[in-house]
Structure formats: structure tokens, C-alpha cells
């Protein structure tokens, strides 16, 4: 193949499709897009052999991903084409089914770009190797079919790979054995003689430095005399290969099947692959520097076209099959059961780790709630200033990026604020913790909203990365002058409503978000806020979250909520009554954190 690798991206969701294609673009791949299984299969039938990898969504209308996968694996021309499936998280059964059906890898949604890129690169590399190996098998086939016993030695990975293709040709099902054999030869050199550890290999692959390192070690005095010995022995009912290296051995038990810890690594599958696909038994001996692989010779009644000595061309033979209906004694079936059992263990490990994570998140969530105003402080403020304060704080994931608060300044003034960090989840939540410790650093500016936001902005700009910023509104209510003086940093406008008439006045929320540049000065604005009025501060989730009919409220919608709630419930209107029409209809889970803070000045100015 010449030119860049080609990937076929199959997903019924336009945005996912383009996102995936965008990632492959980064790798310099050529991509072809298909929006469902039918379209994908049309393309594969027409030009399937031109692709190096398929990214396939599991759930699609018309022909679903499993059907496409099954057709690919049943097609002699396409069966080695690696297929990376994507599925919703937590669909363990789908993963088991997919592995049975021959998927190269499973990605769970939402797909992490780094994982996608490394898995795709690994798949394309595998495919290129398989192509080479299989062409090799074809060339070697005729000569070696009569081999009875033999002893072979080699040093380099290239010689190992050549020997693998040669010996596979002498085995009962060359197409099936060559892959596992090549993996075992490679392991004997890399991890045996050249003593590259699993962790080192992970690192070398990530740095694209594996080949260089292999060459260095092949020439190094410590390693250059080491050889791998391969003994081949044919009996009437089986072929036995014994591969011995001169390394220190390794803890092979970890690698015989997929290990939960390694399930998302891009290498380390060789031994499990050899075990589950290529051989009937695989046995490590001693300290792990010797492995015995056995392939059963089918009885005459089981013979497939590949056994047909010399006559049938090996490359276009019947698909390497994984029969599943031949009873409990069938070794293929046993291997499938073993893979399945292992996945169940993996699932248990994942569940345990999820539980730990859930406990940590619950603790963090509690800490975040502790940042919100203390009920005792609220009570004092309500008494002193003749207020009724209510809030709604709802995060879109376990932790949120919103924060609000109130603080007394003196007998007739108090401050209130809402802050919304860009994004949500843990990164945004950590910023709320940082900010909370900062809020008390400038007591001298508390009474001056513009200045307060300006100094806060300087502090945040020195701490936050580029895409992290916060929108904020900071206000001071003065019950003597009946005003709300405030400053804003790209916040939704504060709303003041007359509790008698329902008339709503909006302030101005515009301002550069906090944390982008230091040295931004914020202006102090003012709204009248006499008794018998309320002020509503809120995060943009209230403006932007989609309701059931796909529209969002926008500013006029929020003003409408407020005036309608006052018209219906009068002066005693509650925040939950204001928000009910939104909370009842909004799509869950929320797409952003929601904060609303309502502060009512009682009509008589006291309780």
C-alpha cells in the first residue's frame, strides 16, 4: 500500500462522525464517512481492501455495527481489516459479543481523543504486519508442509517474523497460527533476550522509539550473543513448538489473558491473542523464558480446505473461523468462555474502582456544598436586613463549577455574588475551591463592586489556564439608599422585580470574563432596589439549557418566568415557583451547572 492510511468512519450521529474524522485527520489519515451500516457495507464491498482501519459505531439504525462486523469477518478479503467499535459505557455484554465477533478494540463513549489515536495507530500497524505475514506464509507454504522435526535459532525480530511465517506454513491452519506465532517470537526477542519490560515498551511506543531501542540492544555487548531457540515437532495428532529465550523470564501469568489493568493499553495482547486465537494450548515453563505452543491437527472428518495439501491457495482459503456451536469440548468455545469469564472479572474490578471513585466524589461534593453560605449566617442577614433569601444549586455532573454567596458588610449593607467557571466537572470544581479562599483576601474592596472584581480578576488571571475563566456578578445591597450596586464579568444580567406589579428590570451583565487578562477594570453599575422588590441572580444554564421542545429560555424567557410567578403567587413568591416551569421541562441531565439566588426585600422592610 502507498499513500496515507485510510480509515472508514461509520456513525449515524453527524457530530460524532465528524469528530472522529477530525481526530484521524490529525494523524494524517484519509477518511471516508458513512452514516449507517448499509452505506458502510456498500463502500466496503466496493473498495474494502483499500482501508486500513474501520471505526464502527455499535448502535445504528438499519444495519447495526454488529452486522457490519460480522460481514467483514465473514469476508475472505476483509477478515483481517481491524475494526474498532464504539459503544456506550457499561454495556459489558456488547463488549463480549464484539470481541467474540472479532473486534480489534472497544472504545466506550465519550471517546477520549488520546485513546482513539493510539488505538487507531496500533490497529493500522497490526494490519500492516498481518498483511506482510500472510503474504510470507503464502510464499513459504509449499516447501515446509512436510517438515517433521526441526531446530531453529534466531536473534532479531525480523528473523523471528520470517521464521514465524515459515513455520506457520508447516502447521495445520497457517492463517490462524501465524499471528500468534509471530507474537511469541517477538516476545522472546523483545521481552526475553533484550529484556525490555512491559512498562518500557509502553513508553517506547509512546515515544515512537521502539525500533531504535531494539537496534541499540541487539548490538549491545550484554545482549548481542543471545539467541532464541525454536523446536518444531509434528506428531500424528498435533504440532508442538517450544520457544526458548535466554532472558530472565517474566511473570507470564499476568499476560495469558487480558488483564483488567491493561485492557486499555495498545500492546500486551500478544500472548492472550496467541492463546485465544492461534493455539489450542499455550504453556509457559520454568521462570517464563520457555513457552510451549500446541496446535491440534484436525481429524479427517473435520478437515477444512486449508488442510488440502498443496491444492488450495492459502491466502484465499475459508475464513479463520471461531465456531461456537460444536459443544463444550470445542477448544474455540472454551477459549471464548475464558475470555468471557475474564471480562466479567474485569467488570468487577471496574465496578470496585467506580465505587471508590463514587465515595471520593461524594466527599468532594459535600466539601463543595460546605462552600455555600452557612444557614446561621444567612439567618442573621435575613433578620438584620429584612430579607428572604432562597437559592437553587444543581450541578450537571458530580461536581460543579458554580459558586454563590452572601456576606454582611455593616448594619445596612451586604454583598452577594455568583460565579460560574467555564466548563463543569472536576476541573471547574477545583477552581471554585481556589476562588473561595480568595474571596476574603480583599476586605477593603468589599464595598466597591467594580474594584472588587478588578482585583479578583488579577488574582485569577495569574492562576488559570487559557480556556479556564469565570463569569461573575458581584453586588452590594444598600438598604439605606435602596440600591444594588454591582459589577459584572460576562454574567447574565441581574433582574429586579416589583413584587406588587410583577414588573421586571434588567441590569447589565456585560464585562470581560474573569481570569483572562490581568489589568481589566470593571465598572460599578447601579439599580434601584427598594423594599417590596426582589433581585434574582443566576448562572447561564437558566438561559442556555434546552427545554423539552429544544428551545432555550433566553433572557426574555427568564424575565417571563419571574413576572408570571409573581402574578400567580403574589408577594410571597418562592424561588421554586419561579423556577418550576424551567425545572419541569429542562432536558436531564443538565448540560451545565445551574445556580439561582433570589433575595427578597420584604415590603415593610422588616420580617
Amino acid at each position, binding site marked *: 500500500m502507498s499513500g496515507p492510511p485510510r480509515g472508514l468512519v461509520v456513525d449515524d450521529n453527524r457530530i460524532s462522525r465528524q469528530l472522529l474524522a477530525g481526530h484521524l485527520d490529525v494523524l494524517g489519515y484519509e477518511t471516508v464517512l458513512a452514516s449507517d451500516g448499509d452505506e458502510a457495507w456498500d463502500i466496503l464491498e466496493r473498495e474494502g481492501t483499500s482501508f486500513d482501519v474501520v471505526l464502527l459505531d455499535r448502535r445504528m439504525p438499519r444495519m447495526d455495527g454488529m452486522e457490519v462486523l460480522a460481514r467483514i469477518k465473514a469476508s475472505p478479503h476483509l477478515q483481517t481489516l481491524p475494526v474498532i467499535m464504539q459503544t456506550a459505557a457499561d454495556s459489558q455484554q456488547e463488549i463480549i459479543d464484539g470481541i467474540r465477533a472479532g473486534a480489534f478494540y472497544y472504545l466506550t463513549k465519550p471517546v477520549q481523543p488520546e485513546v482513539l489515536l493510539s488505538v487507531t495507530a496500533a490497529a493500522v500497524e497490526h494490519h500492516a504486519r498481518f498483511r506482510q505475514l500472510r503474504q510470507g506464509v503464502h510464499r513459504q507454504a509449499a516447501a515446509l508442509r512436510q517438515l517433521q522435526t526441526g531446530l531453529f535459532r534466531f536473534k532479531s525480530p525480523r528473523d523471528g517474523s520470517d521464521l514465524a511465517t515459515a513455520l506457520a506454513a508447516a502447521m495445520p491452519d497457517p492463517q490462524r497460527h501465524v499471528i500468534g506465532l509471530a507474537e511469541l517470537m517477538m516476545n522472546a526477542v523483545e521481552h526475553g533476550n533484550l529484556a525490555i519490560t512491559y512498562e518500557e515498551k509502553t513508553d517506547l511506543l509512546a515515544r515512537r522509539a521502539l525500533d531504535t531501542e531494539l537496534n541499540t540492544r541487539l548490538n549491545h555487548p550484554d545482549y548481542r550473543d543471545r539467541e532464541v531457540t525454536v523446536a518444531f515437532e509434528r506428531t500424528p495428532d498435533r504440532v508442538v513448538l517450544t520457544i526458548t529465550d535466554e532472558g530472565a523470564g517474566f511473570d507470564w501469568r499476568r499476560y495469558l489473558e487480558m488483564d483488567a489493568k491493561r485492557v486499555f493499553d495498545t500492546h500486551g495482547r500478544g500472548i492472550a491473542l496467541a492463546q485465544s486465537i492461534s493455539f489450542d494450548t499455550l504453556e509457559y515453563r520454568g521462570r517464563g523464558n520457555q513457552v510451549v505452543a500446541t496446535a491440534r491437527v484436525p481429524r479427517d472428518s473435520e478437515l477444512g480446505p486449508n488442510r488440502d495439501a498443496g491444492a488450495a491457495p492459502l491466502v484465499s482459503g475459508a475464513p479463520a473461523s471461531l465456531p461456537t456451536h460444536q459443544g463444550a469440548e470445542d477448544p474455540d468455545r472454551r477459549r471464548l468462555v475464558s475470555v468471557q469469564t475474564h471480562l466479567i472479572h474485569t467488570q468487577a474490578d471496574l465496578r470496585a474502582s467506580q465505587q471508590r471513585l463514587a465515595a471520593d466524589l461524594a466527599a468532594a461534593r459535600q466539601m463543595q456544598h460546605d462552600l455555600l453560605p452557612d444557614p446561621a449566617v444567612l439567618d442573621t442577614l435575613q433578620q438584620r436586613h429584612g430579607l428572604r433569601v432562597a437559592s437553587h444549586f444543581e450541578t450537571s455532573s458530580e461536581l460543579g463549577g458554580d459558586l454563590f454567596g452572601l456576606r454582611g458588610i455593616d448594619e445596612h449593607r451586604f454583598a452577594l455574588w455568583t460565579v460560574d467557571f467555564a466548563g463543569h466537572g472536576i476541573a471547574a470544581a477545583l477552581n471554585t475551591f481556589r476562588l473561595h479562599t480568595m474571596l476574603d483576601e480583599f476586605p477593603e474592596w468589599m464595598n466597591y463592586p467594580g474594584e472588587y472584581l478588578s482585583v479578583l480578576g488579577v488574582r485569577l488571571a495569574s492562576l488559570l489556564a*487559557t480556556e479556564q475563566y469565570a463569569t461573575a456578578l458581584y453586588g452590594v445591597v444598600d438598604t439605606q439608599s435602596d440600591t444594588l450596586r454591582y459589577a459584572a464579568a460576562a454574567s447574565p444580567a441581574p433582574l429586579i422585580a416589583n413584587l406588587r406589579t410583577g414588573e421586571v428590570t434588567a441590569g447589565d451583565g456585560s464585562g470581560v470574563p474573569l481570569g483572562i487578562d490581568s489589568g481589566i477594570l470593571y465598572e460599578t453599575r447601579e439599580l434601584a432596589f427598594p423594599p417590596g422588590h426582589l433581585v434574582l441572580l443566576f448562572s447561564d444554564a437558566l438561559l442556555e439549557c434546552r427545554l423539552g421542545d429544544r428551545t432555550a429560555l433566553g433572557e426574555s424567557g427568564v424575565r417571563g418566568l419571574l413576572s408570571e410567578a409573581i402574578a400567580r403567587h403574589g408577594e410571597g413568591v418562592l424561588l421554586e415557583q419561579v423556577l418550576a416551569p424551567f425545572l419541569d421541562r429542562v432536558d436531564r441531565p443538565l448540560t451545565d451547572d445551574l445556580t439561582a439566588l433570589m433575595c427578597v426585600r420584604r415590603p415593610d422592610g422588616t420580617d
Partner: protein
Amino acid sequence: MQYNITTEGTATVLHLSEQLVDADRAAFDTVLSRVLSSRPPRVIVDFSGLHYMDSAGLGLLLTLRERARAAGAEVVLRNPTGAVRDMLQLARFDTLFSVVNA
């Protein structure tokens, strides 16, 4: 997000259409690399076809600003309309970028 890239004199023009939201993060990042790869002295982001941008979209523009600055390019925001213009106005992006209507 849909986009296409053209040139006007020495400037590279990134035409954005549909919407710019959190889900476009990865794609936008790729687009930026492409836009800046020719090291243009000036990058014009044309919003004529963009009808919606949320607060995450603002963050993406900040990334653009930072990366353009590092690459020595000036950024101009052109022809924002409707909700996009309102969002830029809310965040006073006219103080961070030059905003023009042509």
C-alpha cells in the same frame, strides 16, 4: 461547527458556520492548527454563517487568541450577528479582539 478556510491577501480567513459549542472543542483545536500552520500575520474569524455560540465557544476563541499570539498573528473577529454578537458583547470581547463588520 462547520468551517472552511480561505485567504484574503496575506490573511487567513476561518469561516465558521452553524454553531460553536463545547462539543466542537477537539475539532476546533485541529482547525486552529491548520489555520496557523501557514504562519499568517493575521487571522480573520468570519462569523457570518454562525448562528449560535455558548460560553464554551468563548473559551475556544480565547484559545485561538492565545495560540495566535504565540504564533505572532493578529486576530480579527468579523461579522458577528444575532446571538453570537450578543454573546461577544456580553463578554466585552471587543476589548480583547478587534471586531469589524464588513
